[in-house]
């Protein structure tokens, strides 16, 4: 086994920013281990020149599986493509960023290959000639140094753990390959898609975000959040759980599948603070958490936490900020 394969995800015809960051980190790791790094891209109607540009982010070769079966963004056909790439490439490590698709695809690949899998990796180190990851645990209070005993190791990195640069403008040779698809991998069919509408205020630009989660109780709970955000001259953000439940629009969602935000002030109201939310807002300047559960993980990474009833605290906060005008 030799070399590092990086699954690079295509979103809206372009390589996902998260994948570029992982590819660059893999290139640093590959240099330290003396292993070449190859980018694996799965999709349909992919452009060779655009894929070759991954050479500018550290890939020595770009291997492209271009097939209608890979157009839907469903993970299982991607497992087949990665397994085909592994058959010819015999890679020692597989890396991918933690999108929903990539995480599912790496899980399937690890099971298919009997490979050890580490998820939520936040650092990649070369130690003793092998990859040793740092995997965050226990609410990010500890970093476990995880390595592999299997011939192939699979790593899913935490979203946003590795920021991408603009690249060096280089390019790499593109090689196309044809995956062998399994029947069960093609059994899940995409029957509909609603694009996330991008209406409403741009939460990425707001200096203050007041965010609501399931702790608000219901959709009506957002009225107090909106008032508070307006008092601060800021915008409203929401967690995946409340967006999925239909309480607030997708365009306001912060987290792994939503936006990544870095406001000066982030006030989390009724948000427990699961890792999928944290990765979207941990770069905020000051983090405030209001939650009735004193054990909520959000208190582990807030600067100022209030254990109490947000129904009384938030309106009072709004009045105090309004009074300061």
């Amino acid at each position: 086994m030799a070399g590092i394969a990086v699954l690079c995800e295509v979103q809206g015809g372009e390589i996902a920013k998260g994948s570029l960051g992982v590819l660059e980190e893999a290139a640093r790791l590959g240099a330290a281990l003396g292993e070449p790094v190859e980018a694996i891209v799965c999709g349909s109607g992919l452009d060779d020149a655009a894929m070759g540009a991954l050479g500018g982010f550290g890939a020595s070769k770009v291997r492209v599986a271009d097939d209608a079966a890979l157009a839907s963004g469903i993970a299982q056909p991607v497992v087949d493509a990665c397994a085909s790439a592994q058959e010819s490439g015999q890679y020692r490590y597989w890396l991918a960023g933690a999108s929903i698709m990539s995480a599912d695809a790496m899980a399937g690949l690890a099971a298919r290959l009997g490979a050890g899998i580490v998820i939520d990796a936040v650092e990649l180190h070369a130690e003793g000639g092998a990859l040793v990851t740092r995997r965050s645990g226990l609410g990010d209070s500890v970093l476990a140094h995880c390595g592999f005993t299997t011939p192939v190791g699979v790593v899913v990195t935490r979203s946003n753990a590795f920021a991408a640069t603009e690249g060096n403008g280089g390019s790499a040779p593109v090689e196309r390959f044809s995956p062998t698809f399994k029947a069960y991998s093609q059994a899940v069919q995409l029957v509909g898609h609603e694009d996330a509408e991008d209406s409403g205020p741009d939460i990425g630009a707001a200096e203050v975000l007041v965010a609501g989660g399931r702790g608000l109780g219901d959709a009506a709970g957002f009225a107090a959040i909106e008032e508070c955000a307006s008092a601060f001259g800021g915008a409203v953000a929401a967690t995946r759980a409340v967006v999925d439940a239909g309480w607030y629009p997708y365009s306001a969602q912060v987290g792994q599948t939503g936006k990544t935000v870095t406001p000066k002030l982030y006030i989390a109201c009724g948000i427990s603070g699961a890792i999928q939310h944290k990765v979207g807002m941990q770069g905020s300047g000051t983090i405030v958490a209001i939650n009735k559960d004193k054990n909520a993980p959000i208190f582990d990474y807030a600067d100022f936490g209030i254990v109490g009833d947000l129904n009384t605290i938030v309106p009072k906060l709004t009045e105090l900020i309004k009074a300061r005008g």
Partner: protein
Amino acid sequence: MRIAICVKEVPDPTAEKRIDAGTNRLVRSGENTLNPYDRHAIEAAVQIKEGPAPDAEITIVTVGPESANRSVDRALAQGGDQSVHIADEAAAGSDLLGTARILAAALKRGNYDLILLGQQAADSESYVMAGLVAELLELPCVTQAASIELADGAVTVKRQVETGYDTVKAATPCVVSVSDAINDPRYPPLPAIMGAKRKPHEVLSLADLGVDASTVGAAGAGTTVGGLSKPEGRGDTIVIEDDGSAADQLVAFLLEKKVVA
């Protein structure tokens, strides 16, 4: 219709978290509880039974020490008809793949039409078990279901992805992990809690399932934990309990930090 729900016992979030310095494993002594994410999968199964598949038989499947039977009973109280509990000392120290191998062996034996999981485990925040188990069983897999509809031997699932919402369809048998937004799990009434112990419990060893003990547990783990270190923290956290003055204290803090003028 046969529905299986894979559940996990996790340390109670209110208990102190620690890792054993000798073994680098999570210490699971003290109060344990049913993984809260799994309650959404159980509720989803109960709603299927109350709706399109009144004949559904719901089996709770878990891997864990014998003491995990309390969480199995908790899951049964919420809506299971019977349980399959793989309790074997050789399973201790299993990594993700090892746990998936044991679950897959137990699931294969049950010929289930629908295999449900919660979206992640609350202790390890692991979100890949559905993908691992589905691949080992060679079954279609859908994760992060925000809704499930069952009709004509197929499930239709709405799920959030990076670009919006996908609606996908898969024929049964298949594996589905559910989002914690899919439903609000109901608390079981007292008679259901009392009755859970009397439901059929099957406790199995690895040998019963034909699982080679060298492929699971600490011995068969594909990943190693070689050491632990402290991440860089955000610095000091101030946490206060609201005594009526919390909003005033927060504003004072924000003024001091010059976050508001």
